[in-house]
């Protein structure tokens, strides 16, 4: 029985690729920090996208390519990689890509994986913590501290985000999935807005309370959040920017529906490989011009 327990030094490293679920697993970063486990993750770079392109299937979406690139980049730099299988109930589904991440990586990379299935949150932490060789007491303590820190931080961000709605500048609501709009490399497009005097409100910091005003059948957890943010901010913002990677399955339907139902100026940015920003710059510039003329 005891042979299963791995003795670990202080220098244990867990890789957390900065793509897809990373942004939904922020609590884990705090948790690992509490346990003194080093979390390794890098920002997306051009090199990582190219690595992803080599192994990914040609039809996979850009976010998926980025994720696979991260995995390849991380492989010899850490002891474990954390890949959860995020799924909720039937009314709160994830994109189909999230369900196959673990098996894709498990089949094609030779690396130790940590994984959990979304059961009860505390159970996941106990499972992973025990696999890393900690005892229940340590894990529970770390979990509660992580929980507090995470919630505090999230609350702060949400308040900051909503306060932007009161600013006197032009306001833009940026609608997109966290793994796209928070990504460092794809974010270069969003940085282009900073040249102009506009405030950007992020859609992923809202709750999913309002989506049914616009869509009754919607069953994707994070699309609900996006749609709710549109409903919530519709009156106060000057324009809406949809930020999508090509070819995102959820956004292809949901964004189209939202665009058809709102009467605000909007810009639909679909990003494939980001080779030059010049084209994007022109479009963003003219969009901001339109907003200022309104």
């Amino acid at each position, binding site marked *: 029985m005891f042979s299963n327990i791995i003795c670990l030094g202080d220098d244990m490293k867990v890789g957390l690729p900065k793509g897809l679920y990373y942004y939904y697993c922020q609590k884990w970063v705090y948790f690992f920090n509490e346990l003194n486990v080093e979390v390794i993750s890098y920002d997306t770079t051009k090199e990582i996208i190219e690595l992803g392109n080599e192994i990914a299937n040609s039809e996979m979406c850009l976010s998926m390519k980025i994720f696979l690139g991260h995995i390849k980049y991380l492989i010899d730099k850490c002891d474990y990689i954390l890949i959860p299988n995020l799924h909720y109930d039937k009314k709160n589904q994830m994109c*189909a890509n999230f369900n196959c991440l673990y098996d894709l990586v498990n089949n094609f990379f030779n690396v130790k994986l940590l994984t959990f299935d979304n059961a009860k949150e505390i159970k996941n932490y106990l499972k992973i913590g025990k696999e890393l060789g900690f005892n229940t007491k340590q894990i529970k303590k770390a979990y509660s501290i992580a929980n507090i820190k995470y919630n505090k931080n999230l609350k702060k961000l949400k308040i900051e985000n909503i306060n932007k709605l009161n600013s006197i500048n032009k306001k833009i609501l940026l609608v997109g999935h966290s793994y796209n709009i928070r990504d460092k490399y794809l974010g270069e497009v969003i940085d282009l807005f900073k040249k102009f005097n506009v405030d950007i409100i992020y859609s992923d910091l809202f709750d999913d309370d309002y989506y049914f005003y616009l869509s009754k059948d919607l069953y994707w957890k994070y699309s609900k959040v996006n749609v709710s943010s549109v409903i919530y901010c519709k009156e106060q913002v000057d324009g809406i920017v949809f930020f999508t990677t*090509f070819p995102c399955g959820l956004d292809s*339907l949901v964004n189209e529906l939202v665009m058809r139902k709102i009467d605000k100026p909007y810009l639909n940015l679909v990003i494939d490989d980001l080779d030059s920003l010049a084209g994007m710059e022109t479009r963003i510039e003219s969009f901001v011009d339109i907003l200022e003329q309104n």
Partner: protein
Amino acid sequence: MGDYYVPAKYLLNKIVAADILVAPLITAKTIELGSKYSPDFVCTPFKYTLGTMIEALDEGANILIQFGGGCRYGYYSELQEQILKDLGYKFELLNLVTNGKANIKRIYKMIKRIDKKFNIFKGLYYLFITIKMVKYMDKIDDYIRKNIGFEINKGSFSNLKQEMLEKFTLVNNPFSLYILYKKYFNKFKKIKINKPKDCLKVGIIGELYTLMEPFSNYYLEKELAAYNIELKRFTNVTYLLLKFKKINKKALKKSKKYMKYQFSADASSNVYWTKYLCDKKYDGIIHIKSSFCTPEIGVMPILDKIANENNVPLIHFSFDANTSEVGIKTRLEAFYDMIEMRRK
């Protein structure tokens, strides 16, 4: 989808007092219409169904029925309704499956709204017959697929099938349906075929719509049968309605080596079936899907791996609204040549 309009029409005819309009066959014009009004990168079934809806509305339909479930399918209806309303059509769209579940109470209310005299027991009785009918159809289709490549008189299978479907629509109780099924199954068995014992065997797997709607895969099955190949296809309505959960569970158990979690839609069954086809020593596997089908794209590398390990050739076909038929034919021909050469 294929011949399944027959049982669907039968069911609706029996339980609802309304004119049932079978959507016209899909043509190139349907696809053109569909793609014109669809978003850029939705998967192809969306375009097909939207095109069919527009054509049906043009012919005077005012109630449309849409199923949903699985991956993106579940969300089709809402967007399609919006698109059609923006185009100025007046109609009602009934979505039978919402949030991945078929809510019987909701469906009952919907039907009640169309036809006030609707009787639930009558409805259930005919639903039972329809499900039986679909089951028999699938069984016969399986037999046809195995043998159609070797028929001596061209068209004898498809003619007999047409005849059978016409007879099926006249049935009123499950017992006579069963007798009809037995009778026609015997007739099918009597059709003369010239089948060698070691014929080439190919399994077809993939995404459900593209598999079941022959137009969307450019009659791939017919094409294959012309090469004298025995075909095996798993996906049919019986599987979707009755066996879906069971097979998914079985898939997780049997192919533990390749997958730990269940994938969405048909993806996990496809992994299992690939394994099955490899174990049964099939000569080749054809994986077809519509382009941008997310669940299938995710598992494609895994399917490749299984096929590689078992040394079975596997080919992927991705169908879009404007895929050229000639390109598909060339690839299919090359694939056929390859599996034939491997035999030798």
